[in-house]
């Protein structure tokens, strides 16, 4: 599904060079639930950005569904993300002027699908995350857990092959954290979607098929 080969990435910050990824090699199979874990600044978010094509590695290859995306054009990457990738953000990143259902629909607006079809898919996605009764609420009217479930519905509305989640429970209370992680696990099982979660919380490891431990830009352990 996703193969990272000899990935390297450096940043310059305040004159110093920070090695965010150091010869990273990782294979993620289709349908796996992977947790990437490590302390702050270990390179786990950089790895997620690079795997999704949001950031480019300095060297190395990322084979996504048989295609090297490390050198793909921006439009090609957008198309891949729209068709195959779902994103879940720590800060939810919902559009404040759109209702829950419109936020979910927004992903499909630039497609050739008919409006009714888009709406039906968005409603089905909201039903999957148990948020249908809140479909006409604006983000400001939703709790943190509900916002994240709305974000999750947006991530699954196009039936992606992989969902990438960057600290998806970072802003949630323990109860909402459990709800969101249970939903991710359910999506992983029911839809056979590959899930990659970046987190610093070891308590979430029980959800994973594979835990990737990172430190100083390198993978130190895969279990």
């Amino acid at each position, binding site marked *: 599904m996703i193969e990272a080969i000899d990935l390297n990435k450096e940043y310059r910050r305040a004159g110093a060079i920070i090695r965010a990824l150091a010869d990273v090699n990782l294979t993620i199979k289709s349908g796996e639930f992977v947790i990437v874990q490590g302390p702050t600044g270990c390179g786990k978010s950089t790895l997620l950005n690079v795997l999704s094509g949001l950031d480019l590695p300095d060297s190395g290859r990322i084979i996504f569904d048989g295609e090297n995306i490390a050198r793909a054009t921006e439009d090609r990457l957008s198309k891949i993300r729209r068709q195959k990738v779902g994103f879940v953000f720590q800060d939810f990143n919902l559009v404040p*002027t759109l209702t829950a259902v419109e936020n979910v629909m*927004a*992903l499909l607006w630039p497609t050739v699908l008919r409006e009714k079809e888009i709406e039906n898919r968005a409603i089905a996605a909201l039903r999957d995350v148990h948020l249908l009764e809140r479909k006409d609420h604006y983000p400001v009217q939703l709790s943190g857990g509900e916002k994240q479930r709305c974000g999750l519905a947006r991530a699954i509305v*196009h039936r992606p092959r992989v969902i990438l989640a960057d600290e998806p429970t*970072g802003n949630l209370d323990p109860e909402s954290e459990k709800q969101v992680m249970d939903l991710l696990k359910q999506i992983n099982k029911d839809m056979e979607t590959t899930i990659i979660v970046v987190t610093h919380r070891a308590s979430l490891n029980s959800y994973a098929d594979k835990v990737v431990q990172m430190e100083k830009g390198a993978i130190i352990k895969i279990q």
Partner: protein
Amino acid sequence: MAFRLFKKAVVMVLREKKQFTVFCLMYTVLIFWTSFSIELIIESGGLGMASASFFIALGVGIFLSLLYGWIIVRRNSKIIATLKCIGWTNGDINSLVSGFILFTTILGFILVIEVLFHYAAIVGYLEAAAAALNGSTYDIAELPLVSLLPVVVTFIIFLSFQIIAILLANRKILKVRPIIALKRVGE
């Protein structure tokens, strides 16, 4: 698809009540001001205060249009980054932002037509009343109407300003990196 995004832009911009109302009213005032200046230029032969008023209105108009384009991208950079993350292309986002900008101007233009009718009615009423008090008669032909030509010319001028604003916004959209959607607040 571009039409759908334009329709969504209209819905979104109408919900951004504060920003939309302020800019729409400013456009209304500017379009009215510019139309009136053009009318005066036509009447006076293009000299003096009317020309100065026209060029000031143009300057303010282009500044406002560029400011609006800049504010839309600046204020919505995280949303734009998020849309890029979830698969929108730069072209899709350009369509949405163009919709924001164009709709605000078009509504400003429609409001101007309404304002011009009221302006003519109020001024006509006051002048007729003054004429009646003076014992003279008021000729309806003296009604201070801004004719259609200045309004249409003004609309074309403002539309071209908006095209410049859209081009500026498009350049700024290209510079928004999707990665900022993943950054924490304050990071």
